């Protein structure tokens, strides 16, 4: 069935397009883009006063399946993604069992085929069992469908192991995503080390714990010429290191999450466990540095680090609560409200960071752009739509969002994956 999207403001950073265009979709692909398309027998979507963007890609999601289906499943996570405006999501390997073998990667892909409404891109482990010791069979995993490699949540402490993984990744031109945290420095930490942690007497995670591993990864990326992606950048020092690396043409990319942009460590005065996340919410100065880096184009991508946890797991004292924020259904409204609608970030730059760039980083050739022949993955936005975050309305199985009750302007109104409307 053909789909015709009429009169939308089409934004495609890949081709530098920002104009009112019609888009014709047939059999899952974009087949025609023109100021005016008239065809018979196609379903028509009136996108007047709406923005039509290449489908959003979240390269950092935890879907919890297999093993922790009480928190999320591939199905519910994909529904949450579709509602949040994402057409593709990359899921981290810290499932139970860990995605470190072909069997698990294939399981995720087959579950996704059966149950998911968006594209599910499994990220496989860099090391077996996420133990940081022996690297996985990367070629086999890649052939099974792994899009990238990461030990997310379990930083590879041994620099030699990291170097070996990077060396080997060149065989596949594979991307390695690193969660940068020196666990010796952050041991036992619950929140960012700063005035608030001192005031509250809470064990803290210093900025240096992130900076040291970012610095190491830059050095190793330079040495091995491998592709490294820094997950959830959160401190000013790491931003400075990223700039330094990019100025030297080292192959390194980085992402930032909405919660690290719109919340600070000071919010922990409420002791709300929904604010407990790793890396932790940082200081106002860090937030400023991240926003400046976004404006200046140093940070490549927005990613949610969607980390669902059940209400019971979060309904405990702060020390006991697991780290993580539920992000898929709030990210786009937050970024539209706080950055785009406040004129901090132009719309095309926003789309680049949430679609074009993640597609490029992950090597998705037919995604992240709107041109004839590419996959018909589209996200349609209404910039002036008022929304109130209500965790009870989440499609995600979990509710752990610190943004509950926030009033935001700007939201996705339709998500199209492979020419199919998966949310509207």
């Amino acid at each position, binding site marked *: 069935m053909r789909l015709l999207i009429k009169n939308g403001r089409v934004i495609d950073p890949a081709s530098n397009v920002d104009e009112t265009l019609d888009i014709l979709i047939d059999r899952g692909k974009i087949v025609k883009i023109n100021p005016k398309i008239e065809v018979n027998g196609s379903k028509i979507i009136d996108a007047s006063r709406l923005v039509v963007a290449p489908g959003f890609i979240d390269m950092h999601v935890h879907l919890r399946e297999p093993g922790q289906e009480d928190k999320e499943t591939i199905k519910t996570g994909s529904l949450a993604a579709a509602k949040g405006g994402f057409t593709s999501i990359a899921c981290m390997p810290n499932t139970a069992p860990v995605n470190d073998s072909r069997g698990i990667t294939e399981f995720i892909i087959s579950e996704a085929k059966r149950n998911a409404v968006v594209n599910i891109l499994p990220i496989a482990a860099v090391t077996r069992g996420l133990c940081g010791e022996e690297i996985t069979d990367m070629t086999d995993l890649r052939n099974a469908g792994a899009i990238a490699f990461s030990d997310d949540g379990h930083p590879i402490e041994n620099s030699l192991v990291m170097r070996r993984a990077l060396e080997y990744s060149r065989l596949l031109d594979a991307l390695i995503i690193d969660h940068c945290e020196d666990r010796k420095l952050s041991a036992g930490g619950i929140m960012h080390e700063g005035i608030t942690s*001192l005031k*509250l*007497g809470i064990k803290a995670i210093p900025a240096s714990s992130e900076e040291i591993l970012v610095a190491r990864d830059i050095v190793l990326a330079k040495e091995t010429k491998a592709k490294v992606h820094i997950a959830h950048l959160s401190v000013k020092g790491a931003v400075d290191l990223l700039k330094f690396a990019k100025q030297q043409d080292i192959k390194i990319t980085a992402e930032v999450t909405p919660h690290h942009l719109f919340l600070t460590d000071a919010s922990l005065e409420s*002791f709300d466990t929904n604010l407990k996340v790793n890396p932790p919410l940082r200081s106002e100065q860090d937030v400023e540095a991240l926003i400046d880096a976004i404006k200046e184009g140093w940070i490549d991508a927005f990613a949610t680090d969607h980390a669902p946890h059940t209400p019971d797991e979060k309904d*405990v004292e702060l020390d*006991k609560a697991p780290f993580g924020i539920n992000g898929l259904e709030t990210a786009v409204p937050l970024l539209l409200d706080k950055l785009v609608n406040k004129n901090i970030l132009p719309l095309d730059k926003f789309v680049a960071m949430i679609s074009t760039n993640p597609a490029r980083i992950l090597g998705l050739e037919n995604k992240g752009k709107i041109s004839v022949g590419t996959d018909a993955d589209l996200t349609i936005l209404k910039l002036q739509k008022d929304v109130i975050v209500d965790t009870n309305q989440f499609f995600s199985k979990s509710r752990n969002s610190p943004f509950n009750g926030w009033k935001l302007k700007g939201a996705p109104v339709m998500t199209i994956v492979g020419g199919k409307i998966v949310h509207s």
Partner: protein
Amino acid sequence: MPFDHKHLLGIEPLSKLDILTILDTAESFVEISTREVKKVPTLRGKTIVNLFFEPSTRTRCSFELAAKRLSADIVNFNKQFSSVVKGETLKDTVLNLEAMQSDAIIIRHACPGAPHYISAFCRSHIINAGDGAHEHPTQALLDAFTIRQKKKNLEGLKIVIVGDILHSRVARSNIFLLNKMGAEVVCVGPPALLPEEFKEFGIAFDYTLDRAIRGADVIMMLRIQLERQQKNLFPSIREYRDLFSLTPKRFRRAKRNAIIMHPGPINRGVEISANLVDSAKSVILQQVENGIAVRMAVLYLLLGGKERETTD
């Protein structure tokens, strides 16, 4: 004097007037503990739970006696013999105790914010008896009460707090309280236990005790936990003692009428010389004694009289 709080979660949310109200109320309770029959019927029929998840001698007994001297019924919860060891959560533990119609819960817990967390779903008045390294409000109140006994007024006094400031809930509550009351606070300790950012809380800090102690009215020594040494927060007890222990020689640099305080438990001969502990300059046992009156005041202000609309 109004005291418009449902809970006592910390010193930080209190005003100067709130603090004075508690201290003045405590004055009137001192005498009860000196009577032959050490009991008044003020809180008869009230049920109080002592919910201690960490070991305690002074605070637990002091709260228990304070409750008993006001004729309240008090239940002591013992973590080791409770269902917590079977994995029952803090929330379920508290909800079950509340189902037994508790009026107040006195909680000590290793996690900062644990009292704040339970106050969100409890009917009972919550009293923080120490939450991790965060606050220990009744300790700061009894310290203030003791200083006032000796020095009349807190304003303008130079108070030196020495030791492991970083991990100390006593230090934090005292810093908040003494600041509100207009005292000058100087903190002293090794750098890893006294981050420079503490000065954001309106204190001065010094790494040299010999210098900081000059002209001090009050010297408050904190217990140094011996296990900190294993984490390299300081190299050895020997060196710690050399630099930060209160010795008679160092004490002579303070004001002639300076007093020595310690929240206990003491490591005799480590952070403080044993003969200073037992000297006339030490008010350490008076702190303990005053703790009962101060806690009676807190229980009375929260639980006494008829229930009124309160906010916190």
